[in-house]
């Protein structure tokens, strides 16, 4: 494990039945996302969606310190959902996880279902729901950036609860679920701050140059129209 720069669940942390169960959850979720994503993809948004996936891959490599001896990395659900919508977003995160597992030996192959469930399905859904609920505050540059931060923070913590659920169903019963939960959720509250900062910076940067490409801003009455010559 030395030198690895990102790490998802390995094989063996969950029993085979539970791993298979979450492969099923992931397959059903991704089938729904694929069917729905079509409506959000056209000649203009499809290339952007491909780049969002590549950007997530790059950003997931950038582990940042959260505690002495502990790092964290972006999961990316809220970031993807805000930029390209929840359905395409879930597919973006999933493609990154598949590339990481199959090409970079990061994240077990049988654990892929659980990893997709947590980061792509739960993380993206949570990020999107929070961002949508707070959408009325996303007027103006500051509002949007704050909404992105909060959505990303919550997506990280809730995605980590996905692991807790999976561990409760099919983890090694020799270990106390309470202790595991406290550690996982506690550290992901801190990682969520980093996730929030990265998401806020990215969404803010995209919205500054191309607000028309930000999914969350669709249908809003031009809150971020660029006014040339006006100081920020």
């Amino acid at each position, binding site marked *: *494990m*030395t*030198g*690895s*720069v*990102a*790490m*998802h*669940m*390995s*094989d*063996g*942390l969950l029993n085979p039945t539970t791993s298979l169960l979450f492969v099923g959850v992931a397959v059903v979720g991704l089938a729904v996302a*694929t069917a729905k994503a*079509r409506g959000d*993809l*056209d*000649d*203009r*948004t*499809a*290339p*952007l969606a*491909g*780049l*969002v*996936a*590549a*950007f997530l*891959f*790059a950003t997931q*490599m*950038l*582990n940042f*310190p959260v505690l002495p*001896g*502990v*790092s*964290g*990395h972006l999961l990316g659900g809220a970031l993807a959902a805000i930029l390209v919508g929840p359905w395409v977003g879930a597919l973006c995160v999933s*493609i*990154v996880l598949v*590339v*990481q597992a199959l*090409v*970079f*030996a*990061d994240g*077990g*192959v049988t654990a892929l279902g659980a990893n997709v469930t947590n980061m792509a399905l739960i993380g993206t859904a949570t990020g999107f729901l929070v961002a949508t609920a707070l959408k009325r505050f996303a007027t103006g540059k500051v509002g949007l950036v704050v909404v992105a931060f909060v959505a990303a923070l919550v997506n990280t913590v809730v995605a*980590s609860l996905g692991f807790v659920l999976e561990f409760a169903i099919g*983890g*090694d019963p020799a*270990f106390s679920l309470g*202790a*595991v939960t406290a550690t996982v959720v506690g*550290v992901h509250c801190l*990682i969520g701050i980093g996730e929030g900062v990265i998401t806020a910076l990215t969404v803010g940067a995209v919205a500054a*140059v191309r607000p028309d*490409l930000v999914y969350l801003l669709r249908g809003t009455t031009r809150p971020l129209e660029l006014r040339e010559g006006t100081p920020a």
Partner: protein
Amino acid sequence: MTAKTGDTAKTRNLSFLLGFLLVALVLAGAVSYLADSNPDGLDHATLKGCEVVETAGGEQLQGSCIAQNAKDHQFAGSPLADYAVDGGENTTGLAGVIGVVVTVVVAGGFFWLLRRRPKA
């Protein structure tokens, strides 16, 4: 959408997309060297109770922790395993650049095939 002539909008789109790609390449190819190599949040939780000991046969976990159930990756011997090219030192950046290219081709290709096409 129709406020601009098609050509200007296309150029603007293309330069934005290329800029976005460039940022991803720089992050994966260069900034990745600054990444914290400590275990991430999930690893930290699964390693709790264990001590990582360097032995002649590599790293071993002493104590009692969830990570002891973890199996070696099926593709641990693959050429880009652990974000290094053939396990080489200081190849993280190259591995990252390859990863960005692979991801943009796979994801971009998939989304391009999936997109709604204008009715002819």
